């Protein structure tokens, strides 16, 4: 098991290395370079730009810049915001909890509902329920999330007034209940798309598993149908589902971005959009890296959990 763990950690580390190189390349490929805010500003003189360059270490050869930057990322020194000057790390960390709250709650909700729907659809193949849930999933996957969010705000916040239209709490006063009240709409919107994906994937996974020989053996032993489903079928589906969770992370993070924008939810996504308008490179890069890091970490976790669940993976490289 430790050999597997080691090899997966190494792969993850290499991935992160690749991610950092791509990120760095992007930063320098963008027109205007990292100092776009200044270079594209006609009132800033060439001499000023030179000074700023030296100050930010941008006059040094690329690979040195990369090493410094990557090293900084790794040690937590993420630089300073172009727009305000605070420590990028502080700004981003400040926003992380809100994003994780949104993502985590949506994922859990989507998992429970999506897997249940997929399971029922697989057990009652070609029934009315199966067909209806398939069409519903398809439409849900086709909705532009931002538009759906706006619609939700219009109906539930503005017209019906059941929920607030945005933000995470009512001006510092509210406690947990207030946050939950604010969470309902964004979580529902984000979970909507996730449920669709989970239900479809669960359905096809369960159908594949039902065709397996070991399910037939379990039935032949006279195991009660419910136990066959829980102990044999679902257990067999665990690894594919956990793997999907890992693969879905980029979409989850992206979806969180969109949802935060629409609901003014003070998370990383909203920060990204704001930083975008001011071309605040350090913040943008930091968030991009954090996003990729979450994805790599999530996939690593998914693989490790799979190895724990499936005894066949323990041998060698799995």
């Amino acid at each position, binding site marked *: 098991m430790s050999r597997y763990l080691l090899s997966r950690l190494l792969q993850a580390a290499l991935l992160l290395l690749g991610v950092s190189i791509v990120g760095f390349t992007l930063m320098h490929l963008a027109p205007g370079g990292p100092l776009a805010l200044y270079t594209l500003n006609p009132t800033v003189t060439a001499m000023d730009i030179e000074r700023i360059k030296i100050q930010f270490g941008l006059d040094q050869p690329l690979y040195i810049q990369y090493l410094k930057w990557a090293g900084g990322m790794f040690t937590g020194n993420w630089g300073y915001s172009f727009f305000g000057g605070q420590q990028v790390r502080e700004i981003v960390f400040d926003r992380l909890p809100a994003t994780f709250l949104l993502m985590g709650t949506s994922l859990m909700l989507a998992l429970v509902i999506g897997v249940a729907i997929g399971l029922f659809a697989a057990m009652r193949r070609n029934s009315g329920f199966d067909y209806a849930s398939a069409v519903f999933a398809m439409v849900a996957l086709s909705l532009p999330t931002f538009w759906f969010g706006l619609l939700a705000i219009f109906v539930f916040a503005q017209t019906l007034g059941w929920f607030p239209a945005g933000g995470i709490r009512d001006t510092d006063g509210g406690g947990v209940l207030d946050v939950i009240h604010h969470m309902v709409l964004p979580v529902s919107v984000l979970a909507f798309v996730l449920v669709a994906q989970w239900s479809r994937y669960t359905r096809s996974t369960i159908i594949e598993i039902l065709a397996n020989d070991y399910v037939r*053996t379990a039935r*032949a*032993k*006279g*195991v*009660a*149908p419910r136990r066959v489903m829980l102990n044999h079928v679902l257990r067999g589906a665990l690894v594919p589902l956990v793997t999907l969770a890992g693969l879905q992370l980029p979409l989850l993070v992206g979806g969180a971005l969109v949802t935060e924008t629409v609901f003014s939810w003070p998370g990383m996504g909203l920060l990204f959009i704001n930083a975008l308008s001011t071309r605040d490179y350090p913040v943008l890069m930091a968030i991009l890296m954090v996003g990729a890091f979450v994805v790599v970490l999530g996939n690593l976790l998914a693989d490790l959990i799979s190895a724990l669940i499936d005894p066949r993976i323990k041998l060698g490289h799995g």
Partner: protein
Amino acid sequence: MANASDNTLLAVNNLTVSFGPSRAVDGISFSVASGETLGLVGESGCGKSTTALALMGLLQGGSTGGSAKLLGTELVGRSEEDLSRDRGLKLGMIFQDPGTALHPMIRVGDQLIEALRAHLKLGKAEARKRAVDLFRKVGIAAPEDRLRAYPHEMSGGMCQRVMIAMAIACNPKLLLADEPTTALDVTVQAQILSLLKDVAREGGMGVILITHDLGVVAGMTDRVAVMYAGEIVETAPTEQLFANPQHPYTQGLLNSIPQLETGHDAPMPVIPGSVQSAAQAKGCRFAPRCPFAEKGCEVRPTLKPVASDHFVACWRVQ
């Protein structure tokens, strides 16, 4: 030889299995007595496995008709929940590929204990003890340790032993063995077959042994039923069948077994042609390949006795 009317274990009457318009099993009738081993022989696709699966109610799709009474209890047409109470307890089944027939993520001991506790009210410790005994009975060395093994850690022969243990765990009266040795190494085949024989005799079980291998039949069975294209064409006590085959198909089968005496250059006798598709059934199914086919064969023959306990479905013989 068992007297069919006294201790009939299983009485199958006009069993049919249809998948849409085609009939995989077309109205077969036979019986198995307590303690008797019936061989069900035929080439791939003749419906022998389908018959066994139909008896156990394990078919995926397709509709089953007719009757099959196990000790007076009807098996056909029951719900999954209802059947699960009898499966494992009154009738058990062993499958062809032991590698895929066991759940890869559950320890074999737990799978066996699950079989035990599905029908017998046993505490954990008692169940474990019985599992150890069963492992020992089927010839697994170091049974206590082996309980904790996973299927992929065991050889094919060992997995098959586990399967046998699971099938007989609750002392069923009828055992269905579907090509139990086909997927195993030749050296292991004999061991498994002899194990089956011992286990059946010890438990006073009736056995239906499904195979395409006449050699297996010769050593293991009391009676044989020959199937072709979904129908039973001949049944007889084993010795009788081999000594005096009446149906042209049976004769062809026996002739095609290579003999030591046949010279090097003599062509291998084969039955010309191939099985017609189930949809085209009119008259005797074997007629297209039969060397003795005549006008009367356009009407489908039924099983008629030609000697005591020897039945043949062929106009020529009747």
